């Protein structure tokens, strides 16, 4: 900390200060970051409209050697608020009766973000008429 020695102290007293190139570049980068952060947050504050979580769930068959009847679940929140403890239910239906049900719990679904998980069945889904995947419940974060 050379600023503590007498030479620098004199400079400070006369109201001047000198920094080397490294310090100026750190300061420049930091200022850009800070201004960027503030600009971003101001933009978000003014454009942000509070809205309830809007969850969309999609799925795709994703079998593996040990889980032949596995489905990959994609959860996307299009809303302006985070959903907590999201419960997703997947059912195999045959003639409108449920053959098997499976559940997936996802701790958080942040606003405008994606989360993924897997659901397994013990029955071969090919023997069912259809598969139904839906969001059962979620709570306010």
């Amino acid at each position, binding site marked *: *900390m050379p600023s*503590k020695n007498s030479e620098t102290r004199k400079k400070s007293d006369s109201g001047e200060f000198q920094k080397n190139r490294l310090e100026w570049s750190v300061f420049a980068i930091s200022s850009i970051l800070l201004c960027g952060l*503030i600009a971003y947050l101001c933009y*978000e504050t003014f454009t942000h409209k509070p809205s309830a979580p809007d969850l969309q769930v999609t799925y795709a068959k994703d079998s593996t050697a040990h889980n032949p009847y596995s489905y990959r679940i994609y959860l996307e929140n299009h809303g302006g608020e985070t959903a907590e403890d999201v419960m997703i239910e997947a059912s195999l239906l045959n003639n409108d009766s449920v053959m098997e049900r499976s559940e997936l719990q996802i701790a958080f679904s942040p606003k405008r973000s994606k989360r993924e998980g897997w659901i397994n069945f013990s029955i071969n889904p090919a023997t069912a008429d259809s598969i139904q995947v839906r969001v059962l419940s979620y709570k306010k974060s």
Partner: protein
Amino acid sequence: MKSVSDSLKEYARGITGGLLFSLPLLYTMEVWWLGFSIQPYQLLIYIVATFLLLLGYNNYAGVHEDATFKEVIIDSVEEIGIGFILSVLVLWLAGRIDFSEMNINEIMGKTIVETMTVAIGVSVGTAQLGGDTTSGNNDKNDDRNIGGAGHAVLALCGSVLIAGNVAPTDEIPMIAMEISTFRLLMIVLVSLALGTVILFFSNFRKSSKLPSGSLSLAVMFETFTAYVIALITSALMLWFFGRFSDIHFSTAVSEVIVLGLPAVLGASAGRLLIKQQ
């Protein structure tokens, strides 16, 4: 002009200090969750509050003792910049931010919430972690007269730094909800006792000059001030971390007292931070 190697040493102290004080927070999941549930305007308030705190700390106890106000501003901006880069780095290393999967909101929220504590850590680290020129030519430090406002700012920084590490955790509401009134009262007494001990020792060097009566009076006054500051900081932090929403007033008071214990440690140690420089 300062040599590049001196500046590098200073940044190294800042970076290590920043990590030393804030790694617990970078590794705390409640803080990541806050990052995606917080509103943008709250983050703006958070940045402004931290910046003011950094200005205060750098002004009264910062690494550049004779700094002009302009230099204090420059140092504070640099500390936020370093804090931001460190947060991105650690969160990325820990797999908490992922540029391919996560939305920019989530990444920015997490990073900004973490950045501010890291920045305070960087500031304290730069000023405190064994500067090579601090010994020898700084006799001036002992009588660096910072006055009441200065002490209050240091107490504020100290309590944010120490209590900030536990404020966002679920343990605070849990303790507050389950605690009995008797234990709560004991926490208040223990907080005051700890504050007194720390402040007494930080005033020890001066104590020989003072008659014993006025010393204990001064320590008592400072302890109460430190405790009040600690409680205020605790309340503000708990509010920021969303711990006051939908709870009864008495639980909120319990939370403040529970967090007041680590906060008063920090508030009274804030005084030590400058004295031991």
